[in-house]
């Protein structure tokens, strides 16, 4: 499955996350394997100071 399709399925805005496959950052056109371990890391922080 493509990263972009995964994010769409999870209803996540690609602007607000990084996708890390194993130890590597991946772009939204990358293909993920069925057994890949994927971390979707939010990047939004909220302090308004």
């Amino acid at each position, binding site marked *: 499955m493509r990263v972009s399709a995964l994010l769409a399925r999870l209803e996540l*805005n690609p*602007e607000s996350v990084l996708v890390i496959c194993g130890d590597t*950052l991946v*772009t939204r056109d990358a293909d993920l394997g069925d057994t890949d371990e994927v971390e979707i*890391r939010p990047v939004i*922080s*909220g*302090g*308004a*100071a």
Partner: protein
Amino acid sequence: VKCRVCREPAVIDVRRHNAAFCGDHFLHHCREQTRRAIHSQRMLTEGEQVLVAVSGGKDSLALWDVLLELGYRADGLYLGLGIGEYSSASRDAAVAFAEPRGLVLHEVDLASEYGFDVPGAAAATRRAPCGSCGLSKRHLFNSVALERGYDVVATGHNLDDEAAVLLGNVLRWETDYLARQYPVLPAAPGFVRKVKPFFRLGERETAAYCVLRGIDYQVEECPMAAGNRHLGYKEVLNTLEDRSPGSKAAFLFGYLERAHERFAGDADEERAALRTCAGCGSPTPGELCAFCRLQERAAPGHRAPVELGPTR
């Protein structure tokens, strides 16, 4: 997607630049954007001693790293805000960055030195914690920098932070805040210079920078910020950005280049009318500064802080 520079496989796309980068060229991109921000706004000069406001999150640790990579002399300041496990993990991340690199990390603990913490201040004022937190940070970054002889305080505010603050200020036409919203605020009596060298980098970029540099930062969001207005503005802006890449940068940079000047006079007037706080000596429009008033409410009777010391 291939790296815009070397055509090797890319690890991150930056749609606002219509570009993708391999790891090495992405790190170069981050440093170049920071260098450009510093030079274009004359934020720092060679040999100046910089105090980086370090929270343990992605932005401040990436900023500290980039400033050192660019050759600046930069120490860190961590404020203990007393937000339970979140604060402990944040401090651990700041120390884990500083120690192996032999960096100076000053620490100030709000509770032990000023008698209150952020949850306590929120309860005492019956207002959202982010207000007391921001106020305390602004006050202490400035006062510690002055006491310790730093030329400038650098904060990790990024493009997303600044665009979200701008949206909030514009929605309410907060002209006083608009006047002060700029990537560099010059020094003035009682105020050290403040700079935001990351205003050209999005937070997705600062997070990716940390991942690629192997910097372990506090990934968890502050539990007290959940659902705040600022996060709502970021969500709205990211929805726009997804549909139309470059929107956030156009909004912020357009303001800085073409509109800020129209509000800047308000800040000059405000600064000219300041006097000295009876409690701590900081500049203030009233008798007591906002931080001392907060301390009076949150920690009645607490006396002045003790001498600060670096961790190493």
